[in-house]
């Protein structure tokens, strides 16, 4: 019977060497996870495609109330000193009616006719804006007034109506001055 030694024998050293060497992975054992790179590519492409094709449009809303029909409608009480600005969109331009009656061409005085005729076949929104600013300045009572009425020919398109609302919103010569922001529709006769 051999005595146990403090030193390893050559065979034991060889065995220790063999057992302590890290095992090399077989090629099929390496990276034991699903290869999701092609899937990731697809996702990235879809993401870019979605971002590129979605038309980013910035929208806004203009608030209003039901149209007046036969003197009825949901809206604020209007004092007798109010301007009661009404814009009629007709084929030849803008006819304007205010507290003093119909506004004459040129927006200078009361009188019959189209207050803001078309310019080169186009509606003149700048002149409409200037006229609205002038009418609002006519009396201190009108300064706090923000509502106006709008009506048009049955064939007037929606874009023209929105452009009129825009033209009456802010004084183009003094952008800090608000003119008429509350729109009310009237039923065309």
């Amino acid at each position, binding site marked *: 019977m*051999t*005595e*146990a*030694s403090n*030193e*390893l*024998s*050559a*065979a*034991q050293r060889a065995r*220790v*060497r063999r*057992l*302590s*060497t*890290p095992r090399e992975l077989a090629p099929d054992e*390496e*990276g034991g*996870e699903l290869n*999701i790179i092609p*899937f*990731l590519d697809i*996702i*990235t492409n*879809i*993401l870019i495609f*979605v971002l590129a094709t*979605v*038309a980013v*449009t*910035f*929208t*806004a*809303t*203009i*608030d*209003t*109330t*039901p*149209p007046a*029909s036969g003197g009825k409608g*949901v809206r604020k009480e209007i004092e007798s000193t109010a301007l009661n600005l009404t814009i009629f*969109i007709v084929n030849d331009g803008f006819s304007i009616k205010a507290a003093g009656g119909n506004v004459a061409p040129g927006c200078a005085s009361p009188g019959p006719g189209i207050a803001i005729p078309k310019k080169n076949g186009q509606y003149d*929104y700048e002149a409409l804006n200037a006229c609205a600013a002038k009418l609002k300045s006519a009396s201190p009572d009108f300064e706090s007034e923000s509502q106006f009425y709008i*009506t048009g020919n*049955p*064939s007037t*398109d*929606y*874009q023209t*109506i*929105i*452009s009129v*609302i*825009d*033209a009456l*919103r802010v004084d183009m010569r003094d952008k800090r001055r608000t003119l008429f922001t509350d729109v009310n*529709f009237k*039923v*065309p006769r």
Partner: protein
Amino acid sequence: MTEAASGSGKPARASAAKFKSELRKAVRRNAQEPEVNFLNITAMLDIMTIILVFLLKTLGESSAAIPQNDDLRLPKSIVRTQPSENGVVLTISKTQLLVGDRKVLDLPGRESLAQTGVGAQEKRSGPNDLYIVKLGNALQAARKIDRRVREAKGLDPSSSESIIIADGTTPYRLLIEVLFTLGQNEFARYHLMVMQSKEMPR
């Protein structure tokens, strides 16, 4: 020396405990840090998928998702207000009238719309009437649901709001008929949807 100590031809072997101890030491000595031979992108993929789903859902529900095509092109405006999200959505395209996603009416040509609106057969009492019967019926149903929604939200249930998405070429006559029908069905406030523009359209 150990061989000599054993007194036989066989070499002396260390004890099993010594062998195990030496083996453990050798294993520790030879141990390698695991080699990073692939990037674990699963977490990133999860995030990207969530972002994609979130983006699609948000875009699908937001007002920015209003389809801009030949049938429906919003008017442009310089207004910069935040678009209202509350209310029953009513869409007027060139060919159809919709409440929410449901088609209510097919619209006639623009010439006809400008003269008599949607037509006498769709009105309550003749061509001069402004009330569109089919639209009114659809709005009554929408109003019932909206009333309950408003009650649940703590809003005033006595009237509803409507978001009107209309094509820029919609004739005033049709617009008034729609607004009038809304008013007759307890819709008291309308939000006219427009597309923001830097300059006022000419």
